[in-house]
C-alpha cells in the first residue's frame, strides 16, 4: 500500500523478515508486508498464532532476534528509515517514541525491582530531568491512568498485584515517555473479559485523548471491533486483507477474514448453535504452498489458487485484498440475529 502521504507517522513498505534455520531452511515469517499509520489511528493486526504478527511488531523496532533477519523493506518513522539507523539512534526511539506492551504482563516486569524504580529507569534513560522531577512525572503518569494511590504502586513489587492490574501498569509504563506510537502485542489474551474491557478502554482513551497511534496485535476480531480504526489480516506471513475497520467488518472480501469474523462467539446468540470454524490449522511456515497460502483451508478455492499466488489488489482508495476470487459476503445476516 505505497502511500506517500506526508502525514503518515509510520510507513512500513514491503517488509520481509526471514529466519535462517540451522538446517539451511528459510522460514519466511513476514513476507512482504506494507502498511501505514497516521496520528491517532489504531491499526489492528489480526491473525492466528504463527501468522507473523509478533515478528512484524518486533521488526518495526528493529529488534528481531537471531536467526531472524530483516532481509528487505523499509520502515519509515517520521520519514527516517529505522532499518538503516545506528543502534544508538534506535535506542533513543525505542521506549520513548515507539513503545511496546507485551502479551504476558506477569513476566514483563522485573520481579526483584520496585515498580517505581522500573519506571524511573525508563524515564531516566530517555530524558534529562533531575531525579525529583522524574519521580513527579512517574507519579503523574500513573495517576493519569486512573490509579488512586500512585505512591503505593511506586513502592510495590510486581508480585503484589494481579496480572490484570499489572497489565494496566504496563500501559502506564508504555506511555511514560509520551510515545507517538504504542505497539500492543496481544495485551489481553491472558486476561478475562472484564479486565480486557478495562484495558481496551484505556488504550482507546490514549488514542482519542492524547492522539497516540496504536498498533494492536490480536487474534480476536471481537477485540478489533472495539478499538481499531483500520485492520490488517495476516496469514502465513502475508497480508490477506487491509482496510478501514467498518468496511472490513460490513463487507469482508477475503475468505479468511470472513472465517475469522464468523468464528467469534456472539453474546447475542439466541440459541445454542455450532460455531463456524475454519477447517484445518495454520500452515507450516517452512514449506508454504506455491499458490495462495490459504488455499488448503479455503471453501471458495478455485483452480488458479493452487498454482498462482494472488497479488495484493487495490479494491478502492483504502481497501486491499489478496484473493483471486474475492467473495461478496454481508456479515449483517450472521451478526444481527
Amino acid at each position, binding site marked *: 500500500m505505497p502511500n506517500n502521504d506526508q502525514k503518515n507517522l509510520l510507513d512500513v513498505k514491503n517488509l520481509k523478515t526471514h529466519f535462517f534455520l540451522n538446517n539451511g531452511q528459510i522460514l519466511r515469517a513476514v513476507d512482504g508486508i506494507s502498511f501505514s499509520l497516521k496520528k491517532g489511528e489504531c491499526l489492528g493486526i489480526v491473525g492466528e498464532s504463527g501468522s507473523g504478527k509478533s515478528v512484524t511488531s518486533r521488526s518495526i523496532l528493529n529488534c528481531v532476534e537471531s536467526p531472524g533477519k530483516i532481509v528487505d523493506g523499509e520502515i519509515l518513522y517520521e520519514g527516517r528509515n529505522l532499518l538503516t539507523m545506528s543502534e544508538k539512534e534506535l535506542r533513543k526511539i525505542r521506549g520513548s517514541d515507539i513503545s511496546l506492551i507485551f502479551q504476558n504482563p506477569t513476566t514483563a516486569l522485573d520481579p526483584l525491582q520496585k515498580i517505581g524504580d522500573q519506571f524511573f529507569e525508563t524515564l531516566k534513560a530517555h530524558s534529562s530531568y533531575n531525579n525529583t522531577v522524574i519521580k513527579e512525572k512517574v507519579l503523574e503518569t500513573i495517576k493519569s491512568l486512573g490509579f488512586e494511590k500512585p505512591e503505593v504502586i511506586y513502592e510495590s513489587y510486581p508480585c503484589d498485584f494481579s496480572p490484570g492490574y499489572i497489565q494496566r501498569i504496563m500501559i502506564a509504563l508504555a506511555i511514560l515517555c509520551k510515545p507517538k506510537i504504542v505497539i500492543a502485542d496481544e495485551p489481553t489474551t491472558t486476561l478475562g473479559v472484564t479486565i480486557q474491557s478495562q484495558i481496551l*478502554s484505556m488504550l482507546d482513551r490514549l488514542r482519542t485523548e492524547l492522539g497516540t497511534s496504536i498498533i494492536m496485535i490480536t487474534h480476536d476480531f471481537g477485540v478489533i471491533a472495539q478499538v481499531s480504526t483500520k485492520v490488517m489480516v495476516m496469514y502465513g506471513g502475508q497480508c490477506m486483507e487491509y482496510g478501514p475497520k467498518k468496511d472490513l467488518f460490513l463487507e469482508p472480501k477475503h475468505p479468511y477474514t470472513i472465517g475469522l469474523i464468523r468464528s467469534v462467539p*456472539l453474546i447475542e446468540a439466541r440459541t445454542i448453535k455450532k460455531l463456524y*470454524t475454519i477447517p484445518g490449522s495454520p500452515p507450516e511456515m517452512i514449506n508454504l504452498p506455491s499458490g495462495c497460502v490459504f488455499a488448503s483451508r479455503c471453501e471458495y478455492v478455485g483452480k488458479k489458487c493452487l498454482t498462482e499466488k494472488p497479488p495484493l489488489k487495490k479494491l478502492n482508495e483504502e481497501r486491499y485484498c489478496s484473493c483471486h476470487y474475492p467473495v461478496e459476503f454481508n456479515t449483517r445476516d450472521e451478526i444481527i440475529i
Partner: protein
Amino acid sequence: MEQSLLKIQELKKYFPIRKGLFKKQIGIAKVVDDISFNIGKGEVVGLIGESGAGKSILLQTIALLRQPTEGKVVFNGQDLADCSKKELKKIRKQMQLIPQDHQNSLHPRMTIREILKEPLKIHGIGSKDEKERKARELLELVELESNYLNRFPHQLSGGQKQRVAIARALALRPELILCDEPVSALDVSIQAQILNLFMDLQKQFGLSYLFVAQDLAVLRQISYHILVLYLGKFIEIGLDGIIYENPLHPYTKTFLDASPSIKKNIYEGERIPITWGDVPTPLDPPAGCAFHPRCNQAIEICQKVEPKLEKVNEKHFVACHRVNE
C-alpha cells in the same frame, strides 16, 4: 432439573493463613463459601467468574483433589465423604477434571500414547492390545490423526494439546467432566473448533459438563444454565438462558457488557460501560455485598448487609438488595 448426577450442598473451602515462627493462624481465606447446586444427567452447566473468584478451587474441591472444609459432594447418590478409598477410585473414574493450564497439564516426557494409556493403566482396564486400540479410538474422537501417538506434548500446538487433554479425560468414559477454562488460552478460530468438539462429544456420550469460562459469549455456545461466582459465592443463578435475556445482578451485566461484541461495536456503535477494579482478596473481603465497591448502583445497605441468594422465579436466583426495585 432432571435426576441429579452431582449434588453440592453447602460446600465450603477455607484456607487458614499462618504467619511467623509458630505458624500462628492470623486469618482465614474463604475461597469457596457456602455453595449449593445440582447438575443433572446429560446437563451442561456454565460457571462464570473473574480470576480470583474461586472457580478453580471450587472445581478441585468437587473433584476431591482438596478436602472440603464443610459441606457435601454427592455423586450419583453417594456422599463422597463417606466413601472408602476403593469406592472413591471408582467414582473418580466417572468424574474427570480437565485442568486449566493445558500447556503444562500433559507430562512433557511422556508420548501422547503413554498419556492416553495412563488412566487405563491406573484403573486396570483392558489388555495391552485393547489399550492401544483404545488410545487410537480416543485420538479419533478428538479428530487427531493416529501418527500423533508417538509425539511429545511440546511438538503439539495449543489447540492440539487441548484435544489430547480432552481425549485423556474421555478415556475412562466418565459421566461428568469438570472443565476448567478449557478454551480461554486459545486463538478464536481454534476456540470455535474446541467448543464444537465439546458439544459433539456431549451429544454422542450424553455427558454432563461443569464448564468454566470467563466469557459469557463462550458459555452461550455451550450451556443454558449459568452460575455466576464472585468471591467464593454465587451471586446469580439462571437456568435456561434466562441470564442472557434478563440479567438482574449488576455484576452479571458487567460480563454481558464486557464480551467484545461485533454487533454493538460495528452496527450500533454503542459506547460500552466499563466496570473498573478487580475481584477483592478473600483475605480481606469488603463488608456487606462483596461487589459494592465496584457497583454503580450501590446504596447504603449494600455496604453493611450481605445480600442472600433469593429466588426470583423457578429459574432465577439472585443475591442483590436492589433486585426488587
